């Protein structure tokens, strides 16, 4: 299971095999333009690979108004 945090909600997703974050974002309909990826607490690019037991957070790019 991969733990995914997005817009203050956490959900777990079963991954059959490791996957590029950018492909995961496409599946989840999350725009890479609008979110920063934080994989296991570290800021990474969408070109990193996510695997089972990883924790990934998508942090919103814009803030304020």
């Amino acid at each position, binding site marked *: 299971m991969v733990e995914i945090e997005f817009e203050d909600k956490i959900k777990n997703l079963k991954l059959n095999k490791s996957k590029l974050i950018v492909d995961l974002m496409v599946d989840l309909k999350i725009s890479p333009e609008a979110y920063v990826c*934080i994989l296991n607490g570290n800021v990474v690019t969408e*070109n*990193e690979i996510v695997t089972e037991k990883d924790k990934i957070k998508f942090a919103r790019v814009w803030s304020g*108004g």
Partner: protein
Amino acid sequence: MVVDCFCGEKAVYAENKPLCKFHFSKWLNDFVNERLDKHLKETEVIAVAVSGGKDSTALLDFTNKWAIKNKKKLFAISIDEGIKGYKEYTLNFLRNFCKDNKIKLYIHSFKKETGKTLDELVNIRDTQNFSEKACTICGIFRRYFLNKYARERGATKILFAHNRDDEVQTFIMNLFVGNLPQMTIKGELGGIINHSKFVTRLKPLINIPEKALAIYSLLNYPNLPDTECPYLNESIRSMSRNFINELEKRKKGAKKNILEVYLKEILPTLKKNSKLIHSNIKECAECNEPSSKNKCNFCELICRFFV
């Protein structure tokens, strides 16, 4: 397809080429310093408009370091609009940031200046069935106080943290509403510059993608509050943001291309032919602040909401 920085470290940012935390921060610092060198060498007193959000915090941080190195006077200026459940968090962060970095911070509130918070003004709007959006009221008041108090404290330039996405969104928004005059006073060095009461506006981050600033703030300001203005859904900015993000998704480089065409091709022509820039800016009959009309937008709003 994991792509690392040229130094071998893991990349944190990869718009053009992959960069690790160190090289990404160096790239951003070098870029902003180059813009500050270009525009602030002759400026003795610098004001930085800050909200306590990621962009203005980064801008204040970069500019403060630059000002210390170049022996310039700098102060931060912020406006407390009076938005419950939002502004108190960002202002609290800002106060601590300025204290830690020994930066003089001035905060002016709508409540103290006009007797009403933005929340109260929005309430008046709703009961009176006025059509102004919260962002319109907020924008007019904020620009008015920032210019007035930056000038009164001796600043000859005021820095704003508008990033590339902001500028493209504003361009698209002005297209949506057909506001050509507003477009003419945008750009890196903006505002109306032919009046002594207008402080020239500088936007050194105008070529920096919002995502780069978000990454920089996540890496450097972990305590920055992640709050959202409750009036966000009233603005057409969010519509514009979604629109250009969708464009970028379909056509990589769209934002960069729009900004380049706007800054290099459209803006110079607009500035050359602008009635707003070349007209004689008057002083408002009510408050003596500069205005293109007999009564400035601020005083017009005050009359509507306070009578």
